[in-house]
């Protein structure tokens, strides 16, 4: 434009700036440039302002909010980055500026960097602390699962849960586990399952995949939802080698969805074994209890065998043994046999006969002794408490009117001519009052 021989064309400042901008646009355009971030500022507008520099030069740079908000990692001072940028003149200040459209950390993938950054931040907040980890319930009523409706993960988990512990219900909250918005869905799924009263534990998970595939489980919104859950959360993302942020925050981490399912419920086989052991314990204890009763009977036999006591016992007790104890014994034996028959029938129905035969024979053998021992014990107890023992010795109880009337303990309560009942040990008589004294 400047030609010799003619008066120079004089540009306004704005015109020059415009010229420079065109030249930059045509001559440089959009480039990829590597440098170190310094002097980073992040005002409320959401735009990022920083200086991109190497050891000799520095250039001002801006990354507008629309571009900055899709960054998965947090740019920081000192970070080596590669940016895609357009060089342009900022006319108001006449400053050369890089308009950054995209940014990648150097050396390390953006996702890897983002992962490390979030891990460091949440770790510093204490979200991974062991003290925060809640124990898993032993007998969950329902297991909540946040995963994709379709896919191997839910299939594997259902298979394991059905085999190990069908008594627990399974509540699936279907979500997308990868792609945009997946993290929010997973977080919402955890929150929704927390609103169900019977869900005692939640599994979040998906099968293995690349870092990109698993990304939802590395996002802060999922980490926060796990931390806020009122029931324990088990994270089951991918395979052994893949760790996610969710794994660190969760109350338990399983390498695969299959392993997570096995972690949250007991195994039916173990419980059936425990039940069998309980039954063995019951049988053994009952057999020992019957043995005790038998020993008591033997001791009683010895006492009866003592000659000095024997005479007295024969005189005082033979009669009762022949009547009251005899009746009690008969009743008791009949009762025991009925019970035993009922028990036997149940046991017969319930399990292999051979296994139970020993116990039943033991019981049968014990039943005769059991009935007799019980009768003896009951009689001793009654003797101690009952006036019958006195009556045996010749006393009688006086009752007003008939044998059902009130006990008379003072003759003053009686009038001449009144009818009373005299109650003896095994019989009674009616009598009329002749006279009272005292």
């Amino acid at each position, binding site marked *: 434009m400047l030609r010799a021989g003619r008066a120079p064309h004089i540009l306004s400042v704005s015109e020059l700036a415009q010229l420079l901008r065109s030249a930059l646009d045509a001559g440089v355009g959009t480039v990829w440039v590597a440098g170190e971030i310094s002097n980073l500022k992040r005002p409320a507008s959401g735009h990022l302002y920083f200086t991109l520099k190497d050891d000799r030069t520095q250039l001002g740079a801006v990354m507008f909010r629309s571009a900055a908000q899709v960054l998965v990692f947090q740019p920081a001072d000192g970070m080596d980055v590669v940016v895609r940028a357009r060089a342009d003149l900022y006319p108001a200040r006449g400053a050369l500026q890089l308009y950054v459209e995209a940014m990648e950390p150097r050396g390390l993938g953006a996702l890897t960097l983002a992962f490390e950054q979030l891990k460091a931040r949440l770790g510093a907040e204490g979200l991974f602390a062991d003290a925060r980890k809640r124990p898993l319930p032993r007998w969950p009523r329902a297991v909540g699962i946040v995963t994709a*409706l379709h896919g191997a993960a839910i299939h594997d988990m259902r298979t394991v849960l059905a085999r190990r512990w069908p008594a627990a219900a399974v509540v699936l909250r279907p979500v997308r586990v990868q792609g945009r918005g997946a993290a929010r869905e997973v977080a919402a799924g955890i929150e929704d399952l927390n609103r169900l009263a019977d869900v005692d534990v939640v599994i979040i998970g998906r099968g293995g995949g690349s870092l990109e595939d698993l990304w939802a489980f590395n996002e802060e919104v999922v980490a926060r939802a796990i931390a806020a859950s009122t029931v324990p959360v088990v994270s089951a993302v991918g395979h052994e080698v893949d760790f996610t942020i969710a794994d660190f925050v969760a109350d338990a981490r399983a390498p695969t969805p299959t392993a997570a399912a096995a972690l949250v419920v007991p195994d039916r086989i173990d419980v059936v074994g425990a039940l069998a052991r309980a*039954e063995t*314990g*019951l049988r053994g204890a009952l057999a020992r209890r*019957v043995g005790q009763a038998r020993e008591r009977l033997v001791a009683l036999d010895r006492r009866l065998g003592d000659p000095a006591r024997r005479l007295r016992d024969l005189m005082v007790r033979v009669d009762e043994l022949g009547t009251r104890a005899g009746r009690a014994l008969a009743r008791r034996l009949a009762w025991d046999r009925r019970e035993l028959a009922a028990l036997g029938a149940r046991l017969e129905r*319930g399990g292999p006969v051979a296994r139970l035969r020993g116990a039943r024979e033991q019981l049968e053998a014990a039943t005769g002794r059991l009935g007799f021992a019980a009768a003896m014990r009951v009689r001793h107890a009654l003797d101690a408490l009952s006036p019958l023992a006195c009556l045996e010795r010749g006393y009688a109880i006086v009752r007003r009117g008939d044998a059902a009337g009130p006990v008379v303990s003072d003759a003053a309560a009686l009038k001449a001519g009144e009818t009373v009942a005299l109650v003896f040990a095994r019989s009674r008589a009616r009598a009329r009052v002749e006279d009272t004294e005292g």
Partner: protein
Amino acid sequence: MAEEAPRFEEALVELEGLVQRLEKGELPLEESLAAFERGVNLVRHLTQRLAEVEQRVEVLLKTEAGRLIRRPLEDEEQ
């Protein structure tokens, strides 16, 4: 599983208690026998329940209004 049935956990705790009380040998004979029967019944009941129970699988959906709906998961959805 029927709602009136005791929770597995509670039934197991009761069973454990019965075994312990019986093993102490302090119960009168009749109570020992009753505890034994109750225990054996519980074992039968729980074992049977484990053998018979079928897993309930539900899907939790959210309406646009934010209401949660539980319904059985149809296998063809898989």
